[in-house]
């Protein structure tokens, strides 16, 4: 643990170098929130409550979705794939570090960077400019744990896609497909409540909703009973453990095919 924390700190500092970029990301997010506001306002012109959500709840859901999306978007799949393809991975293999834990902590550092630079300003914007109100309830206390589990799931998926670099030249297709499936079926773009009922039943058991829908619901409707939240978290925990272990096994297999040119 002691040797991994400086890695997180390091990647946090690297993030600071790109301060100029954060400005654009925040502007992009403000525009996105504005567009989402108008889109959902027009949808809610038909009725005050759609699929059990009010306009305020849906807008909070979508806004949080974008904030958490940026938080969890660490580009781990691209970096790991790049390091494998270019042979940079050799630098890590010669050190007494675990490759998966190394990447986990490096991503934790970028996550904290995104949290301070982008997510917090977005949430402040939601509360003060768009005047979104958050109710009080047990969900608020479960949220941090749920977010951490969501990070583990998201990381394990990205990490496994990155490991495909052992087998394939380019990761564009895989990464893009993964990103679309995750964003559409996770609630990052549109509340899962809006999907047809049969689809919702299937989506509930998939890991994607555990990344966005579960933590978002804890802030959107925090005043629900614990027996609503606990099964959702159980699904999260099960996926976090399964995917983390699966990624580990995959690495142990994949590392065997690695050949790095000398020189």
């Amino acid at each position, binding site marked *: 643990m002691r040797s991994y924390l400086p890695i997180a700190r390091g990647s946090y500092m690297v993030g600071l170098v790109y301060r100029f970029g954060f400005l654009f*990301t925040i502007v*992009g997010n403000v525009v996105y929130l504005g567009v989402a506001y108008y889109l959902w306002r*027009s949808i809610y012109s038909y009725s005050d409550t759609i699929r059990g959500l009010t306009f305020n709840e849906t807008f909070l859901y979508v806004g949080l979705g974008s904030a958490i999306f940026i938080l969890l978007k660490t580009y781990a799949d691209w970096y790991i794939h790049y390091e494998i393809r270019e042979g940079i991975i050799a630098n890590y293999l010669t050190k007494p570090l675990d490759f998966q834990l190394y990447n986990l902590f490096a991503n934790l550092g970028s996550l904290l960077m995104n949290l301070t630079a982008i997510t917090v300003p977005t949430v402040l914007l939601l509360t003060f400019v768009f005047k979104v109100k958050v109710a009080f309830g047990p969900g608020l206390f479960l949220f941090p744990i749920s977010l951490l589990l969501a990070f583990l799931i998201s990381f394990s998926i990205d990490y496994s896609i990155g490991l495909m670099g052992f087998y394939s030249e380019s990761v564009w*297709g895989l990464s893009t497909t993964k990103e679309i499936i995750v*964003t559409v079926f996770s609630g990052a773009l549109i509340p899962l409540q*809006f*999907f047809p009922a049969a689809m919702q039943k299937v989506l509930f058991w998939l890991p994607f909703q555990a990344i966005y829908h579960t933590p978002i619901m804890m802030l959107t409707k925090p005043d629900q009973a614990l027996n609503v939240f606990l099964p959702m978290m159980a699904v999260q925990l099960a996926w976090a453990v399964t995917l983390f272990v699966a990624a580990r096994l995959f690495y142990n297999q994949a590392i065997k095919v690695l050949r790095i040119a000398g020189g």
Partner: protein
Amino acid sequence: MRSFAEYLRLYVIIEKQYIKARMQYRADFIISSIGMFFSSLATLGVFWVILNSVPSLAGWSLMEMVFIYAFYMIAISPMQILFDHAWQIRFHVQQGSFLKYYFRPLNMMFYYMSEMFDLKGLTQLVVGIALLIYASIQLNLGWTPIRLLLLLMTLFSAALVQISIIVAASCAAFWVLDSYPVLGLAWKLREFSPYPMTIFDGAFRVAFTYVIPIGFVAFYPSQLFLRPEEVSPLIYFSPVIGIGLFALTYWIWTRGVNSYTGTGS
């Protein structure tokens, strides 16, 4: 000064070689095309989910949205296929390899952009055309030669608007080195172009119509074919807007290229 025909001939020769080289990675091409297929349909999926719960989006039915979306997919294809190298400017500028583009007796923007021909973008074009035909049949749109001509004209202008926004954003690299955040913002804006512009008001409506005119990429031109009676007269100026924006972008590019001093190594 070389003639247009000469450039066209050169372009074909360059891309033939490029495609041959890319085809060495056939699996990559297939996976990327699948990725492109899903990613280009994501926003349409969102519209579909929304229209499951409400009867229309600001008065536009699902099939009308499919038409607007198909128009959007076709309009952004030339940018995706022919100008994809714009994303790499930041790497070339940072690493100094951009210098090589100064040393050919060719138009620099032509030479630079010709180095990449995005094959996976063809997926988007094909799906867009198929959806446009499907929606036209479902909506019973009568296509006369004049309307087809209008379609080609508005598509051409829309493509120019989209190309201009992305290329102009990528030019930021000449001044701030890392143009990714600017490009990311431009890319995000692109995704809003199939939205019915009538849902916006105030600053957003003005910005999407006059400042960064993404409204002209899909929604305003589609109105011309779906509901000609509601159309704003502005749409007849779309070629002027498209060509004007491209000229502006070319001017930004020229300034950027002239101010770049290399990496010094």
